[in-house]
Structure formats: structure tokens, C-alpha cells
């Protein structure tokens, strides 16, 4: 059995430091790792990254993240990544990592992802250079995710993205902005590997649960959606125990 905690869109800055910490301090009793699905910061500055590292680092469980669009706002994503890495946080962009947990290998492949839309309402690689660049960006991220997912040997494989791989977890958002919240290519990448769970954020008004066309469970863990510090998911279950150790 592996338990992973997950949240996204925490948008940490100085004013948030200390808010999550009491719940995060309980993590070693509740989960084996924490995954954060992007938008770690408000503007993507190294200062905000240090605030995130202070709040989400040093927890006693591995912390694995991908970046979100907010973390790119200041064009300092490399410095943000460096701050987080120096704090012991694993940042995945078109990459994968494996955590050894009680004799199991948990593989996590991550990317920010990008928009583009879904079946019936998606952008095409056609026309103006700007449009082709937009679609090409989505395709590049999705291809990199597929490569990362296929690169690991593990007992349970998790895809971690900021943008959504399916439209089901966007329900609640205006239809007009679905194309800016995710793309079907991410879902196709997730289905190309033996993925057990896909986690994403970005859609603050979306829904929590969905599945890819290939049947992989998808969870939108954006903080405004889950409405708590993090959710906990159990993989490789021998026996279901729905009560968390240490839960009040």
C-alpha cells in the first residue's frame, strides 16, 4: 500500500506562510509522499519560491512538484526550480522520479503541460505562426510527458501535471476557457503508459474526478476544489482503510 498526498494551486507568498504548516506537519502519519500540481507561487519569483520551500519543505516525507503557469509569470522558472531543488524538493518538468516506499516503487512523471482543448473543441496546428506555436507547445509537453512516463520501472505510476488531461475535471468552469485549461494530448500521453493515477490543478472552479479515455483515474487537486490542505490517495491497496492514521 502507498498513500500519496496531493494539492495544487497553493500560490504561496509571504502572506500564506504558516497557513498550511499545521496540516503539513501531520503528513508523515498520513501519507508517504506529497505531490504538488503546480502554481506553487503567485508570480514565479525566487522570493516566493523560498516562501513555498519554507512552508512545504522539510516535512519528513518526499515532496515532488511540477510548476504551473503562475510559476512562469516572471520568466524565472529556472531560478524557482533551483530554489526548490536546493530545499530538497523534487521538481519534475518532462522528467520522472522513483520513490522507494515500504518495498514498493512509486514512479512519478511530471510536466506543467499546456492548453489546447479537447475533442470537438481543440486548437489545430494550422494557420498563423502564433497558432502553430500554441499547439506545438501543447504537443511538446505531452510528448515529453509520455516519454517520462515510459521511462520508469515501478509498481505504481502517477502522472503529475498542472494543466488538465481531460474535460471531466473542468466541469464548473466556463466552457469557453476549457482550451486554456488543458488539452487532450496530455490524456493520450497518460494512456500510453500503465498510469495508475493522474493528478492536475489549474481549474479552480472545476470538478474533482474524471477518467482518461483509456480509463485512468484523474483527480483535480486544485486547492479551491479539494477545499483542504491536501487530499490523500491510496494505491496498491491490500485492504482498504478509509480512516487516516492520526485523523481527528
Amino acid at each position, binding site marked *: 500500500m502507498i498513500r500519496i498526498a496531493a494539492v495544487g494551486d497553493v500560490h504561496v507568498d509571504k*502572506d500564506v506562510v504558516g497557513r*498550511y504548516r499545521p496540516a503539513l506537519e501531520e503528513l508523515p502519519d498520513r501519507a508517504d509522499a506529497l505531490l504538488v500540481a503546480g502554481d506553487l507561487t503567485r508570480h514565479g519569483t525566487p522570493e516566493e519560491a523560498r516562501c513555498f520551500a519554507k512552508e512545504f519543505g522539510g516535512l519528513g516525507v518526499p515532496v515532488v512538484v511540477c510548476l504551473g503557469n503562475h510559476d512562469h509569470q516572471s520568466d524565472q522558472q529556472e531560478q524557482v526550480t533551483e530554489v526548490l531543488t536546493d530545499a530538497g524538493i523534487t521538481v519534475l518538468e518532462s522528467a520522472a522520479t522513483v520513490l522507494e516506499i515500504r518495498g514498493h516503487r512509486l514512479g512519478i512523471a511530471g510536466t506543467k503541460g499546456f492548453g489546447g482543448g479537447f475533442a470537438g473543441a481543440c486548437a489545430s496546428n494550422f494557420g498563423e505562426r502564433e497558432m502553430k506555436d500554441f499547439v506545438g507547445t501543447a504537443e511538446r509537453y505531452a510528448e515529453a510527458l509520455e516519454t517520462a512516463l515510459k521511462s520508469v520501472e515501478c509498481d505504481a505510476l502517477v502522472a503529475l501535471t498542472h494543466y488538465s488531461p481531460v474535460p471531466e475535471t473542468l466541469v464548473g468552469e466556463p466552457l469557453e476557457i476549457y482550451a486554456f485549461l488543458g488539452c487532450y494530448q496530455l490524456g493520450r500521453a497518460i494512456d500510453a503508459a500503465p498510469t495508475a493515477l493522474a493528478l492536475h490543478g489549474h481549474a*479552480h472552479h472545476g470538478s474533482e474526478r474524471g477518467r482518461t479515455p483509456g480509463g485512468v483515474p484523474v483527480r483535480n487537486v486544485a486547492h479551491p476544489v479539494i*477545499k*483542504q490542505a491536501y*487530499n*490523500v490517495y491510496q494505491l496498491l491497496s491490500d485492504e482498504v482503510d*478509509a*480512516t487516516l492514521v492520526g485523523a481527528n
Partner: protein
Amino acid sequence: MTIDTDLEAEIQRLLAEHDRIAEQGITVQRRDHLIVLGGEVESAQRRDEICQQITTHFPDVQITCDIGITRTQAPSEVEEIS
């Protein structure tokens, strides 16, 4: 009071692009002569800043703020993925 037809769009761009706000998850809905703000943010300061900046940039607009602060309690349940 006259409300410009693009007002909601202008407010949403302000909320996303203003350096001290950077919020993309706030809903802006027109109710007669009111603009109702919804969604959740990470701190009370952020909610207050949103209201202050809208008032500063659109002084003729009357707003009602239903923005909440996202809760950060630990979970009490686990979901089995199968």
C-alpha cells in the same frame, strides 16, 4: 450608473495582470447595478486587495464581495484508487 459591456472582461484582466493580485480564479458576475465577485483566495489580504484595486480602477462600479478564504485543514479521509 452606466456599465460598459466589456466591464467584466476588464475586471478579470485587472485581477490576473495586476502585480499585487495575480488571480485567475475569481468570477465576475453582473447583478443589475452590482458586480458580484466570487471564488476563493489564499488569504484575507488578497481578498481585500482585490476589492481595493477594483474600487480604485473602476470608482463608479458598485461591487459585492463573496470571495472566500480557502481552508487549510488536514483531511480526515483517504480515497482508494482502483
